[in-house]
């Protein structure tokens, strides 16, 4: 009898195994791929969300009709006083449960960024669904316009910008890093700048008739913040300097005058950049903060104009010197701009100072912005070329 009772109980246990309490089936979810926050009316934010359209993802990624009429995403916006309120308003239009865990990127519109982003970030950290590893960017113009795009190569523009970030093609920042920069003393936030503009064509008979390109997303430089407000943009070259000074991995390329003279260019791909920041504090009258920054850049030669034989050590050394000079100039110009124009310590020099002079830092930390602006920054760069490719010199008639 007991055995039978136990068996029946066991069998009953199977029933609750089949389901779980907070279950959310995939066909009931609206999966967010990208989100954007703009400032609408004062005190109002507009949340723009790019949802995945699951049907477009069915089958292999390459299998969908290239450049076909059906997009793979759906972009909607809603306004509210807070981000979550906007999301609630969004749920009036979205027939499914909005699911944030797969959100790849978060973009702030320019106006929002200028007004301050700290509070808008709260939702994305407090809620358990959005991840700390979302890529964070500032769009020139409106975030909505940025997300109302598609990708010619990927399923959606959110995936495209996510991959561009992941490849470290430019400077990239995750939400957690932004939060750290916002919370930290002795550093000011800087995040990538993105734009959507007409770029490239996917040639097809229909395209031929319609003419023109279509909007694609791209990373273009960086956005400098002071506190949590956007104060200015950096261009591509300055952004490269930023990556070196912050010791961030970046797979960018720079072009310098080659060994063959100023007109003959050489292009190198940066593999690694590292900044060693030494902070000095001169007390006494007119106390002064000084920084000695030693940049070390490792690069591979990828293209060279001119006839020099790069396999010759002296030619290679000349190129390294040229490269070092170029890196030094770029970084120094950026540092000067950060000091004079923005007054924002985007490199975290203050943190370096804190690490090296923790006693003096206590007095300086409250007025670090001014101290940074009038600090003396010396930047020296050293470049090493590691690989020169498969070719020793440009193929041309030899002298013999």
């Amino acid at each position: 009898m007991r055995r039978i009772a136990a068996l029946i109980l066991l069998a009953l246990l199977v029933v609750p195994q089949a389901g779980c309490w907070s279950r959310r089936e995939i066909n009931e979810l609206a999966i967010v791929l990208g989100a954007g926050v703009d400032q609408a009316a004062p005190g109002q934010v507009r949340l723009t969300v790019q949802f995945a359209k699951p049907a477009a993802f069915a089958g292999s990624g390459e299998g969908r009709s290239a450049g076909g009429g059906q997009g793979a995403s759906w972009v909607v916006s809603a306004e509210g006083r807070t981000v979550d309120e906007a999301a609630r308003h969004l749920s009036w239009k979205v027939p499914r449960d909005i699911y944030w865990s797969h959100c790849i990127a978060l973009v702030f519109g320019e106006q929002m960024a200028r007004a301050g982003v700290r509070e808008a970030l709260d939702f994305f950290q407090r809620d358990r669904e959005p991840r700390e590893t979302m890529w964070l960017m500032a769009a020139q113009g409106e975030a909505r316009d940025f997300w109302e795009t598609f990708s010619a190569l990927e399923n959606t523009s959110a995936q495209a910008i996510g991959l561009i970030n992941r490849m470290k093609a430019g400077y990239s920042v995750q939400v957690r890093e932004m939060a750290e920069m916002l919370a930290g003393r002795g550093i000011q936030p800087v995040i990538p700048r993105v734009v959507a503009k007409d770029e490239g064509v996917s040639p097809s008979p229909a395209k031929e008739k319609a003419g023109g390109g279509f909007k694609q997303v791209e990373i273009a430089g960086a956005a400098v913040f002071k506190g949590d407000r956007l104060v200015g943009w950096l261009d591509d070259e300055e952004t490269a300097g930023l990556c070196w000074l912050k010791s961030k991995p970046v797979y960018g390329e720079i072009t310098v005058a080659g060994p063959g003279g100023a007109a003959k260019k050489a292009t190198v791909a940066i593999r690694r950049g590292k900044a060693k920041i030494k902070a000095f504090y001169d007390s006494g009258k007119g106390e002064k903060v000084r920084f000695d920054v030693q940049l070390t850049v490792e690069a591979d030669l990828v293209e060279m104009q001119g006839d020099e034989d790069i396999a010759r050590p002296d030619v290679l050394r000349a190129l390294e010197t040229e490269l070092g000079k170029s890196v030094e100039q770029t970084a120094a110009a950026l540092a000067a701009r950060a000091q004079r124009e923005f007054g924002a310590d985007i490199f975290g020099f203050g943190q370096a100072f804190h690490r090296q002079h923790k006693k003096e830092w206590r007095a300086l930390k409250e007025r670090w912005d001014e101290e940074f602006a009038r600090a003396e920054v010396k930047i020296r760069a050293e470049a090493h070329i590691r690989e020169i490719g498969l070719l020793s010199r440009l193929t041309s008639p030899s002298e013999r």
Partner: protein
Amino acid sequence: MREQTKIDGKQAVMLMLSMILPTAILTIPSISVRLARQDAWLSVAVAVLAGLLFARLSVSLSLRFPGRTLIEYAVEVLGRAAGKVVGVLYIWWFVHMGAVVIREFGAFLATAIMPETPMIVFNIVVAAVAAYAVWCGLEVLSRFNQLFIPLTVFLAVAFVLSIKDMRLERILPLFDTGLLPVLKGAAVPASWLGEIVVFTMIIPSLAAPGSAHRLACISVLLIGVFLILSILEALLVFGPEMTAAWFFPTFNAVRVVSIAGFLERLESVITVVWVVGGFIKVGVFYYAAVLAGAQWAGLRDYRPLVIPFGVVLVSLSILLFDNTAHMFAYLSQTWPAYALLVFEAGIPLLLLVAAMIRGKGEKGGR
């Protein structure tokens, strides 16, 4: 009453490990970092030293009275009335502790994993499973733990996988805040390590009680290593400000792991460690509470107390705190003084001194 089951040394260490570690790695980093900032891991090192002292104290006390638990020898040392009062205090503390752990368990799952499920469901489920384990006895609990403790290795794996996102600068400069914050930050982890006082209820069940000193030391050191690793993981990934801002920074740190674009979203791993360890922790305190209750009342068996104590545990776990914020405020401000000074150090020290003065117990049990 006397417990008949015996557990061996390895099982005892594993039991202590699962008893202290799971709740510690999730709740301590945030609390300690708020006080000691980037030096919080030094706080834990200080706490480990304190923990070794607590372990020494509890074990020395127990070894003076072989085969008996704290509830039993308290009466011999202090006399009937005072001894019984101490017994009641410990029964209360074990129940209170058990209820707090159930609450932490439910709060984490309801906040971070399944927000739509009412917390009481988690609380009832974990208490029910623990009740069954306690009913079956210490040996069953230990064996279950032995089976699942290898999962703790995942904590080390998570640490290794996070190395990519770590930067040493985040914990520099050392000793930035000075000595006092480091000591303040040590109070909470010390109160956690002091939970080793529960060992006084388990030592009589050890197959070889003589090794208790060694076992307690190993336990405290192992817990200390894992705890320092988890604090460092959060600090090195997020820096002090973010670590202090999050309630469960270790959980967030594991969420950040992303290796080659496919080895990511590993938080379920840490959740598994949490669920299994939380269950063991509830089980140990539950067991200590009913055993203490039975010995205090002079029952022959503790089993009649299992269900009533379970009901009290679950009810208390809901009634103790209004919300998670309240729980954290309590754990970081009130708990260390209450647990540390009274139950983990105060009363055991009092008992030991009293026993030495009155010449109670065996001198051999150093």
